[in-house]
């Protein structure tokens, strides 16, 4: 089993649905320790992606899909999450460029490139209470699953589960990057909205791989 363009399209469409469903939850998380726009911005961005997917020509690769996602998110989301998620998808597109089908090892390359792109732009480390706290464990868990010979869906599932755990694990942290960093100890007890949306996006990737 490998995953290809159908999976990439399904992943992004599922993501748009999931972000819309969790819009209020993300706004609430962001209002607690940020400025309350995360759900609104991501919903606007992924809603704008959907019609762009329809314009992709036949024979498009997963890389083509991710490129459209990247440029649309960069030009519609704003805030910090637009450039960060946009760069993640841009780097993911580069990692799997030219491939019609992606195997387990390819998925690990994709996730690694996306994570590295976010680090490059946002300059956050693990433990800073940002989306990196979801992405980094996701990369590690995906890589471990691929090394043990897991199939593509299992690799994605391992990554998503680690991202979900990583998002929950941001709750006791003090933030060192982003708007929440100004709260100091008062950010403790709140989940990072970017880590939460990252976990939702990675879970959508699993649901698309059926």
């Amino acid at each position, binding site marked *: 089993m490998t995953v290809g363009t159908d999976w990439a399209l399904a992943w992004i469409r599922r993501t748009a649905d999931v972000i819309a469903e969790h819009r209020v939850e993300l*706004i609430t998380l962001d*209002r607690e320790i*940020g*400025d*309350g*726009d995360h759900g*609104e*911005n991501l919903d606007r961005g992924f809603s704008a992606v959907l019609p762009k997917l329809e314009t992709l020509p036949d024979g498009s690769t997963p890389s083509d899909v991710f490129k459209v996602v990247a440029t649309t998110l*960069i*030009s*519609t*989301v*704003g*805030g*910090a*999450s*637009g*450039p*960060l998620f946009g760069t993640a998808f841009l780097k993911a597109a580069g990692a799997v460029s030219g491939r019609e089908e992606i195997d387990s090892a390819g998925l690990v390359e994709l996730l690694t490139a996306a994570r590295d792109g976010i680090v490059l*732009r*946002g300059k956050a480390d693990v433990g800073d209470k940002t989306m990196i706290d979801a992405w980094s464990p996701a990369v590690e868990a995906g890589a471990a699953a691929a090394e043990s010979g897991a199939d593509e869906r299992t690799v994605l599932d391992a990554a998503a589960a680690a991202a979900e755990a990583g998002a929950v694990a941001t709750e006791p942290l*003090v*933030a*060192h*990057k*982003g*708007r929440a*960093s*100004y*709260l*100091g100890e*008062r950010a403790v007890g709140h989940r990072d909205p970017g880590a939460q949306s990252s976990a939702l996006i990675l879970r959508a990737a699993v649901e698309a791989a059926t």
Partner: protein
Amino acid sequence: MKKLINDPKNVVQESVAGFAAAHADIVTASTDPLFIVRSDAPVQGKVGIVSGGGSGHEPLHGGFVGYGMLGAAVPGPVFTSPTPDPIVAATKAVDGGAGVLHIVKNYTGDVLNFETAADLAAADGIEVRSVVTNDDVAVQDSLYTAGRRGVGGTVLVEKIAGAAAERGDSLDEVAAIAERVNANVRTMGVALTPCVVPHAGEPSFTLGDDEIEIGIGIHGEPGRERITLEPADAIVDRLLGPILSDLPFESGQSVLLFVNGMGGTPLVELYIVYRHAAEVLAQHGITVVRNLVGNYITALEMQGTSISVLKLDDELTELWDAPVQTAALRWGR
């Protein structure tokens, strides 16, 4: 919360349309992508200056577009940075061949989107320099945060850098002036009430009836501490103390004192703040030679104030005094 709006989704577009109609002698607005630009842009041979950021801080930045200040302003959604596309378009609109300076408040979203836009504009052959303002002394531990925020001092950077561009300084020189203002200005603010982002419909934070937040940024996001309401003079002391010790400001210096309203505090209260701030500076042997009092960088309808102190030298004073013709600042012309 009552607001004088139509659809929350149209707040920024409708406000910019009204702004452009009201100040048609100074600016024009592009609607897609959304930005506000000097009517006479691009001014050939002059450095163009672009600033921008989330809306809700009016008159910043659109109110500062015009002769002697900004070439263009890029308003994002309320409290959300604009995306790179309109920043690139505004950059091109003000490029008179001498390069473009981006003045960016140090907020993660603004920095990331302006960075991306600067890369894109450079790829199109426009020389872009960026100055990130970070005058907020409330953020103490810059190492472990996203750094000090760009707040009230940004207004002074925009005025003085704009004057330098207008007199014909090169891009490097205008950027150096902007850096110099940023390096010599310190700001701290206080919120008495929260504010409500139109599409959120609820306050972004809560304060008890007798509580105030010392050290806020321009969205009401917290800074140092939450305390019980005190008389104005005591609050001014709390804001000025960290400002004066940070640079530090010293006896014998000449300064510009900027008392800014956060949107919901009347001038009658801002002048009470100014009165005591000037007294305290005088006690320290610091001479206030220029001042600015009013609502210039706001957080929607939030009640509160920020105090900025800028150490002046002869050149910065001359550039401050230079003619300016914008919707929000106008003198000498």
